[in-house]
């Protein structure tokens, strides 16, 4: 494997008095796919939101693609542009068409010419099979289509890393598959991915490693097969027995 693209060292974070992250150590190598799971409130979302600094950590070190994230980081926008993110609630921009959603950031952040940005956007929308919806507004699409559009929007920035914050949790059961399929395709294309999810089927299929979190700590980290076959920690066993 090549070198680490994300390194987290002794990362701590508090919300007021409540400590959400406790001494998190995590490094992710290029093209690695990591699934983060754990009970709700365990700090999974906060962990990945720290990676593109939507949340600020108070102690420790986070290095993304060679840049350390801290208050002193000058071009946080540049780092964010290289880290794509897909949210639980899609967060498409409701006042813009799907195509405009996809081209907004490439045009105004990366200064891509409009024509080229639109071509790229159509290609990405093709990939997630909603190119026929490009002119519609987010409100006119189903949940699954919206989430795929959000994925395409993130990919239009041609990121090096993709973060997924429970991408299927707000979807109807029958729409989960279409989103997961799109994510599997992306994984096969060799993207570096960190995915917070409860979809263990997805984890088994694509993840290189699974990270289990509880109460702000990483309880267990293991190769996917080992993780499901013989979990070491009692807490992990309990969790797996409940969801599998």
């Amino acid at each position: 494997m090549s070198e680490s693209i994300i390194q987290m060292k002794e990362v701590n974070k508090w919300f007021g008095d409540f400590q959400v992250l406790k001494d998190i150590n995590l490094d992710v190598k290029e093209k690695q796919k990591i699934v983060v799971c754990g009970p709700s409130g365990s700090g999974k979302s906060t962990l990945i939101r720290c990676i593109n600094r939507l949340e600020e950590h108070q102690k420790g070190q986070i290095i993304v693609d060679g840049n350390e994230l801290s208050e002193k980081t000058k071009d946080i926008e540049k780092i964010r542009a290289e880290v794509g993110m897909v949210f639980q609630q899609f967060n498409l921009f409701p006042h813009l068409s799907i195509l405009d959603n996809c081209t907004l950031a490439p045009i105004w952040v990366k200064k891509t010419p409009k024509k080229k940005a639109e071509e790229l956007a159509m290609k990405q929308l093709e990939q997630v099979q909603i190119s026929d919806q490009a002119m519609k507004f987010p409100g006119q699409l189903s949940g699954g289509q919206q989430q795929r559009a959000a994925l395409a929007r993130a990919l239009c920035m041609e990121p090096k890393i993709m973060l997924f914050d429970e991408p299927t949790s707000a979807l109807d059961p029958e729409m989960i598959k279409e989103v997961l399929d799109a994510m599997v395709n992306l994984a096969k294309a060799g993207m570096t991915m960190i995915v917070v999810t409860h979809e263990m089927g997805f984890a088994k299929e694509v993840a290189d490693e699974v990270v289990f979190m509880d109460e702000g700590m990483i309880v267990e980290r293991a190769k996917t097969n080992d993780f499901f076959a013989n979990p070491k920690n009692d807490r992990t066993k309990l969790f797996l027995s409940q969801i599998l």
Partner: protein
Amino acid sequence: MNNINVLKPRRENFQTYLYVGSGLIFVSIFDVILRSFFSLNFSSFLPGILNLFFPLIIGLVGLQMIRLEYSGNRIVDKINESVNNNTFNAGLTLLIIFLTLLATPPALNWMIFDATISGDTKEACVGSEGACWTYIKVWFRRFMYGMYPNEFHWRINTAFMILIGFAFVGYFMRGKLKNYITFYYAIFYPIIAFIIINFLISGGSFGLEWVETNAWGGLSLTFIVSFFGLIFCFPLGMILALGRRSELPVIRYISIGYIEFWRGVPLITVLFMSSVMFPMFLPSDAFVDKLIRVIAAIILFEAAYVAEVIRGGLQALPRGQYDAAKSLGMGYWRMQIFVILPQALKLVIPGIANTFLALVKDTPLIFVVGLSEVVGMLQMAKTNPKWLGFAMEGYIFASILFWAICYAMSKYSQYLELKYKTER
């Protein structure tokens, strides 16, 4: 069988009740119409108070008789649902209808049939019972242009024509020019407006005689003050709203301080200060025109209100929108301009319209500094010794003017709301 049951319709005999009930309602309304339009009273054989309330009682009985849920008749159901769901509402409805009918003939008589519009002097109206529209006719130019010299009124008219023309330029912008439409209206248009007003209405060059702003007035002044007020208080308010939500304490506290200060003082004192106190703080040779000072005061004042309205819209947006914009690598200004403000401003169109209407209706307050727009001119005309006693006509005229302006604005805001509506 008691009385209530007799009046209560049953499904099987509803047809009969419907005929009798609507007959009674018709009779009651007919009675009121006879009384008010023809001074006839066919129930005068009844004793005093009964006679007075005869239509009300008959009407109530009638409405009572047609009150049946799901009667099967669409019109009756509609009436029952909206105005006839109980005796109290039925009574109120009848009362309002009757009072309107009773008030119509005198109002029509005063405003139209007995009114005078001919002649050019007060004498034309002497002896007439109705309104004296001659007064409005004679003073019309003053109400429109204030004390601006009559022979120069064409300058105001031309200036306004040109400005209206420039306002439509946006419609003809096509293709690449379309990207500059906001820039045109936000920056270029106000500058054009200022230049045109400065050279054409104010004058002083190109052979046009200078007319000092004290002479400006009437509806044209209302338009000038409102126009600059609206155009500038909006961007200022937007910046203040963003400032109040800024993460930088200095900017935030300055914005909060500004907003709370201007919201806390009455407009009338602000206007007064701008015209009386402000010049004292200036070096003696510096001169800022009174009208400009007054418009500036209005802008600063209204911006605080606009800011709070816009802040409401900003707060209504879910945090996910900020997250998404940031995660795509947008900086603060790109995020605000492309993602946050378009959505927030769309949400607050009704609130902004509200503030703008209030601004237009606040313009008469500039009388405290000696500037007279429509209402100010009205006051002047009202106290003119030759034309005493026509305050009513003047105020009705001003109300109609303001209502028309404000209604147009309100309609336009509804149009914008519809235009920018997207499904969430």
